[in-house]
C-alpha cells in the first residue's frame, strides 16, 4: 500500500511561484494498477517523480508499505530506489550497452554477483519477450522493443512498485496495446503495484483498476475506473471519457431513432461492469420469440468488465417483448425503452 499525504511541490523562479503539485493525497492498494490522467502541465509528471524523489517534495509525505520515503537519508533513498522500478516515455536506455547489459545495469548497481546477474537477465529477457535480442544495441530495436528492455530493466531488482511515466506515449497504437498487455501480465504474474501517468484515456480504460484525474496540481476526481467512466463529474473528466466513448451528441438522438424506426420497440441497453454482454443478446433471441436488430452501440472493455451502451430494435408480440425486457432487467444490464409502436 502506498499512502501519499498532502504532497506539494512548488517551483520557484525569481518572481514566479508554480504549484506543480498542490496538497495531493492518495492511497494506492498493493497489487493494483493505478492510473493518473491529466493534460500536460497538470503536474502528473512531477507527481510521479515525487514518489521516488527524483524531485524533492516541498512538503508532505510518501509512504510505501509503511516506510516513509520522504524521511529517508540520501544513502537510504538510493537503496530504497532499487525497490522502485521506473519506465520512461523515451525509454532512457544506455545506447552504449546491449540489451542484456542494459538489463544488467540495475543489478550491477545493487551489487549482484556476476552469475546471478546472468540468470536473472535471461529470466527477464524471456519474461518481456525479447529472446534472441540479447546482443542487440538499442539503436537496432523498435520503439516497442526498447520499452520492453525498459520494463525488464525496471523489474531487475524485483521491485514492489513500478512507476510508468507516459510509458506508451511515444509508441504507435498497436505497440501501445502490446506494452499495455505486458504491463497487465506482469501485474498479475508478479503481484506488482503499478502507478502510471498518461494523457490517454484508453490507457486508463484498458488496464487500470483505479484512476485519479489531475488538473492544476490537484486531484479533481478519483475512484474506480468504471465508476469514473460511467459517472464523470468534473468537466475535465468528461472530456477524457469522451476521448474513448465519443461525444454524447455523437450518439443517436432519440428523435432520429424514432423518425427512422417505426417498427417495434427501441431499447437502450446500458452495460456497467457486465462481463457476459455478448451472451445476453443471443440468449434473448433464443429463449423469447422476438427479433433483435442492433442499431448502434459503443462498448469498451475495462479491467473490471465492459462499459457502454447499445441501441437495439426489438420486434415481436407485445407479451414476448415484455418478457424479454424483464429478462434483460434481471441481469446487470439496464434497459430504457426509447420508443414503441
Amino acid at each position, binding site marked *: 500500500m502506498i499512502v501519499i499525504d498532502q504532497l506539494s511541490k512548488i517551483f520557484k523562479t525569481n518572481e514566479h511561484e508554480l504549484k506543480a503539485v498542490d496538497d495531493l493525497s492518495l492511497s494506492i492498494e498493493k497489487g493494483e494498477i493505478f492510473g493518473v490522467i491529466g493534460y500536460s502541465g497538470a503536474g502528473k509528471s512531477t507527481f510521479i517523480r515525487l514518489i521516488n524523489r527524483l524531485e524533492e517534495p516541498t512538503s508532505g509525505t510518501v509512504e510505501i508499505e509503511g516506510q516513509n520515503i520522504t524521511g529517508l537519508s540520501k544513502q537510504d*533513498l538510493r537503496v530504497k*530506489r*532499487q525497490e522502485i522500478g521506473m519506465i520512461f516515455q523515451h525509454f532512457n536506455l*544506455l*545506447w*552504449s550497452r546491449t540489451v542484456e547489459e542494459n538489463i544488467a545495469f540495475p543489478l*550491477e548497481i545493487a551489487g549482484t554477483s556476476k552469475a546471478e546477474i546472468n540468470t536473472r537477465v535471461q529470466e527477464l529477457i524471456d519474461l518481456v519477450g525479447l529472446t534472441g535480442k540479447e546482443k542487440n544495441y538499442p539503436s537496432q530495436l523498435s520503439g516497442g522493443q526498447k520499452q520492453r528492455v525498459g520494463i525488464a530493466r525496471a523489474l531487475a531488482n524485483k521491485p514492489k512498485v513500478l512507476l510508468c511515466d507516459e510509458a506508451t506515449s511515444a509508441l504507435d497504437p498497436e505497440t501501445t496495446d502490446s506494452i499495455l498487455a505486458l504491463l497487465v501480465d506482469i501485474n498479475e504474474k508478479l503481484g506488482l503495484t503499478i502507478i502510471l501517468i498518461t494523457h490517454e484515456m484508453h490507457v486508463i480504460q484498458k488496464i487500470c483498476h483505479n484512476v485519479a484525474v489531475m488538473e492544476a496540481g490537484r486531484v479533481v476526481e478519483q475512484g474506480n475506473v468504471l465508476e469514473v467512466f460511467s459517472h464523470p463529474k468534473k468537466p475535465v473528466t468528461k472530456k477524457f471519457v469522451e476521448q474513448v466513448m465519443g461525444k454524447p451528441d455523437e450518439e443517436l438522438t432519440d428523435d432520429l431513432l424514432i423518425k427512422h424506426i417505426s417498427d417495434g420497440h427501441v431499447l437502450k441497453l446500458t452495460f456497467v461492469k457486465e462481463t457476459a454482454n455478448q451472451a445476453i443478446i443471443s440468449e434473448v433471441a433464443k429463449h423469447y420469440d422476438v427479433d433483435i436488430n442492433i442499431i448502434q452501440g459503443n462498448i469498451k472493455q475495462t479491467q473490471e468488465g465492459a462499459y457502454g451502451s447499445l441501441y437495439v430494435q426489438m420486434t415481436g408480440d407485445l407479451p414476448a417483448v415484455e418478457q424479454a425486457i424483464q429478462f434483460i432487467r434481471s441481469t446487470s444490464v439496464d434497459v430504457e425503452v426509447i420508443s414503441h409502436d
Partner: protein
Amino acid sequence: MTNLFPNIDWMDLLLATGETLYMTLVALVGTLILGTILGLLIYLSAPGNLWENKIIYSITAGFVNIFRAIPFIILIFLILPLTVFLFGTFRGPTAALPALILGSAPFYGRLVEIALREVDHGVIEAAKAMGAKTSTIIFKVLLKESMPALVSGLTVTAIALIGYTAVAGSIGAGGLGDYAYFYGFTRRDMDIVYVCTLLIVIIVFVFQFIGDIITKQIDKR
C-alpha cells in the same frame, strides 16, 4: 635520395621524428587526464547538475577560459620559470611537456564538457531512479555514453598538440619543428623544411585515421 635532399642527415631526422612522437604522446596522456578532470568538474558543478557548485564552476571554467585565451607561443615563455624549476632547463622534449599539457588540457576540457552535455538527461535520471551512486553515474553513464565524442575530441586535440610541439621546437624543444627551423629555415636548406612538413602531415593523418576507426568502433548510436 641524397641528390634530392642534399642537406638531410637521416639519423637526425629519425631522432627528430621520435622526439615529436614522444612529446605528442606523453603530452596527450597528460592532457587526457587533466582535460577529463577539468571537463568533468565544469560539467558536474554547472547549475542544475549533480555537484552544482558556483565556486568550483567559476574556478574551473575561469581556468579553462584563461589558458585557452593565451596564445601557445606566449604560454611557453610565461611558464618558463616553472619549467626550469621542474627540470633545471627549458631545452629538450621533456621540458616542453608542462607547456604542451597546460596549452592543450583546457582545450580538451572544453571538448569533454561539451561531450558530457550531449548525454541524454533522461538516461542520468534513469540511473538515479535505479539508485546509482554518483561515481557509478560518472563512470558507467556519463563517460561511457559520451565515449565516441570523447575519442574524436581527443583526436582533434592530438592534432593540435602536434602543431604545438612544432611551435615548442622553435625554442629548442627538439622534434621536427626544431629540426625544420634551426637546420632548415635558418640555414636556408629548404629541403629539410619540406621533408619535416611531409612527416608532420603524415603523423597527423595517422592520428586522424586511428581516431576515426576507434570512434566508429565504439559508436553504437
